[in-house]
């Protein structure tokens, strides 16, 4: 079958999709977007987390047909511009700076989930809220300590950026 998906702001089509393929497979193998990761393919690790119509979901459990016509944002879609270092989202930047990345296989999913938490929370979330929001994302390398540091850092910076934007004269 043919599947159309709005991925990272671009309308893409994949042909010859087999009905049993997941959104994750279509993204990774048919649309050239391997950022979402295939760590368990059972919805148990969160490594494949992407936004589907604005909500983070496990792409491995979304049947390809379910994604037809929907909006998907992957970790590749969070950074802007061509200069990788300059265009990073604050969550991405904070993960690098705080040492929250080791092997990095869980990182794309964590970044999307953390991005969702921060975007949907007006204040800087407390550690307990960060932990609760990220409980569906397994990491085997870091013991999570630096990940919490990174999310706290990103949330603080985003809050500061927002405040600065408000203050700035128009």
């Amino acid at each position, binding site marked *: 079958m043919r599947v159309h998906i709005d991925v990272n702001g671009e309308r893409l089509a994949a042909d010859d999709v087999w009905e049993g393929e997941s959104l994750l497979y279509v993204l990774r193998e048919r649309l050239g977007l391997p950022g979402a990761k295939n*760590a368990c393919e059972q919805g148990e*690790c969160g490594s494949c987390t992407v936004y589907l119509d604005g909500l983070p979901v496990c792409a491995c459990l979304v049947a390809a047909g379910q994604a037809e016509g929907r909006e998907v944002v992957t970790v*590749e879609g969070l950074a802007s511009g061509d200069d990788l270092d300059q265009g990073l989202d604050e969550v991405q930047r904070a993960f690098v700076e705080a*040492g929250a990345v080791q*092997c990095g296989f869980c990182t794309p999913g964590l970044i999307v989930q953390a991005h969702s938490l921060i975007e949907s929370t007006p204040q800087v979330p407390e550690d307990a809220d960060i932990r609760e929001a990220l409980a569906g994302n397994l990491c*085997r390398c870091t*013991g*999570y*300590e*630096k990940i919490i540091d990174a999310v706290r850092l990103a949330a603080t910076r985003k809050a500061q950026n927002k405040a600065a934007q408000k203050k700035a004269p128009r």
Partner: protein
Amino acid sequence: MTSIQTEPRSGSRSGVGASVPRPDGTLKVTGEFAYSSDLWLDGMLWGATLRSPHPSAWIRSIDIGPALAMPGVFAVLTHEDVPGEKFYGLEHRDQPVLAVDQVRYQGEPVALVAADHPETARRAAAAIIVAYEPREAVVDPRRAAFDPSCPPVHPHGNLVRHQPVRVGDRFQAEVVVTGEYEVGMQDQAFLGPESGLAVPAEDGGVDLFIATQWLHVDQDQVAPCLGLPKEKVRLSLAGVGGAFGAREDLSMQIHASMLALRTGRPVKIVYGREESFFGHVHRHPAWMRYEHGATADGRLVYVRAEILLDGGAYCSTSRAVVGNAASLGVGPYEVDNVRIDAYGVYTNNPPCGAMRGFGAVQACYAYESQMDRLAEACGLSPVEIRIRNAVSQGSRLATGQVVDSPAPLAGMLRELAAMPLPGSTVTRRSITEPSSAKPSSAEPVPDLRSLPGGVSQTTHGEGVRRGVGYGVGIKNICFSEGFDDYSTARVRVELLGGEPHVLVHTAAAEVGQGLITVKAQIARTELGIDKVTVAPADTSVGSAGSSSASRQSYVTGGAVKAACEAVRERLDSLRAGDPELGLVELLERFGPVEETREYRHRPTFPMDPVTGQGDSHTQLALCVHRAVVDVDVELGLVKVVELAAVQDVGRILNPVALEGQIHGGTAQGLGLALMEEIQVRDGRVLNPSFTDYLIPTILDMPPMRLSILENPDPHAPYGLRGAGEPPTLSSTPAVAAAVRAATGLELPRVPIRPEDIALAAPS
């Protein structure tokens, strides 16, 4: 929470000692980093593996016809198609590339398929008809070890290694404590499943892009099985999604290469999570019996121990694991009389081999449990009993080896014990302390999520008891027992765009630990040049040895340092005629300067097969943990409130990366203490998924308090000490001890599960 130095030690701000961010960090946070499962080539086929459903069976026939007949299938291979040697292995080549006439564990590869879609490949594999004749499976390691009537798993018998340690002859003491302990089978559970891409080459060879811990040892095993000379099997490291020992043995390397050579097309194999559980070795489950004798004032007189490790169906690294369990079996304590017997056996259970901590983890859980029993028997605190027996520089280990670098264990324990304890988790039903944080509020409002049960909010504090426990671990760093353990580095200095630039090339596997960062830091420090590129790891440079045994900073770090020093000498000699010549002019005049160096740590020696005596290790590292837990004794739920650690790393190369190693190792130790176990019944794995094999989530991990010491080891580059494994040892017994302290239960087995607590506790 950490008290470590962050100032750089060199002229370069991004040299040794600085928290330099990972050079691959940006790629990893944007999804651009190419892991082995992300690789893709035009015309690529997908491989799939048919595995045995039986733990032990004869294979009477294999009919590949139905698979071959399926549209989209390009090749179906069995052991008859293995071009060269049919067996491989790290220590002993006893493992078939594809099963030859019999299978020895559930999940053993039997046949391979290449097809144009992964689902087609999986279906074709399922269509292969294998006639198995199941036979009795050897599943009890005690029987395998000690019952002569037990059927042999291999023709040479079921004993992989028996390593005794014998010293002294006084096995009587005023205070004697005994215990039997068990450690369940732990999985490395890295997140990036086994995967790789094999590309057939024009010269008849193969280029293999693979996630591994040691490219050259893969090459050593792959080439003979393909019937190819080594130079025709070229390996490049693809992105590695964690390792922790599970990538030391081969998984799909030979299989993908066979399919690529047969079809003439690139072949990718990616294991799913379930297959991953069958596709790599696990941590050896252990059965241990210990007897400690001491004086009334708590000084160790003797230790007797029997340690049985189930190696499963194939040898893998079991011999070395047994060696570690034996040589480190009493822990970092001074004791003059020791009698240890460590055994590794074959069974038809899943093969076991390397996992972070490597034989030292299991013994550590047992000897630390014993130290707590001894403390109780002697009326001493857990800290005091350990201090009284702690090794220090100059101590003689049970193997006769003298600790010849700083080992300030007693001081580490004192520092750990002096760290402030976390406040009690105040609740309305157990308010015992005034809250200083919110003096104005009438009553402190607890966050129930911080109690056992966490977000499930199973308690407001009722049934909750606090416990504190300590754990001490000692781990050998680098390969031991006479292994020729070295690494190779090639360092090139050249002008790029008119600026001096360093290229560091090694075959060392970056598996997430941050070696890539450290190599560049060393080059900056040694050469004073900020622009450093680390070349991708491949087999076009000499072996770096394995990314295991906490050894790469030491050995590959040492090789990079040595190569840099050689480059510096060359530059100095080139400059000899004109001392005023700057680096840029020098490189302009003479061109790039490149040096390759091998680096070896001090030699080690085999353990005596009868007495276990010998200087078997080159470096030893210590970590101590304190765990604070709240236990809901009625519901069996444990909340680890805090884990504190003191570790001596000799010299900090990268503070943030180092903390990450200690945090991560600690987490894996907590997992073993409280939840992680591959359940094996009658040789069959019951929980090969992340639904049923539980690893700690972010809600299971507590805040961690670290103190990192720098007492240099004069034998090691920069005085550094390997750091990745020690915290994995000590956190398990610390958590277990804390749960014991909270419940008063014996808890002789890890992981501790709710029923171990709730059933035993008074309701």
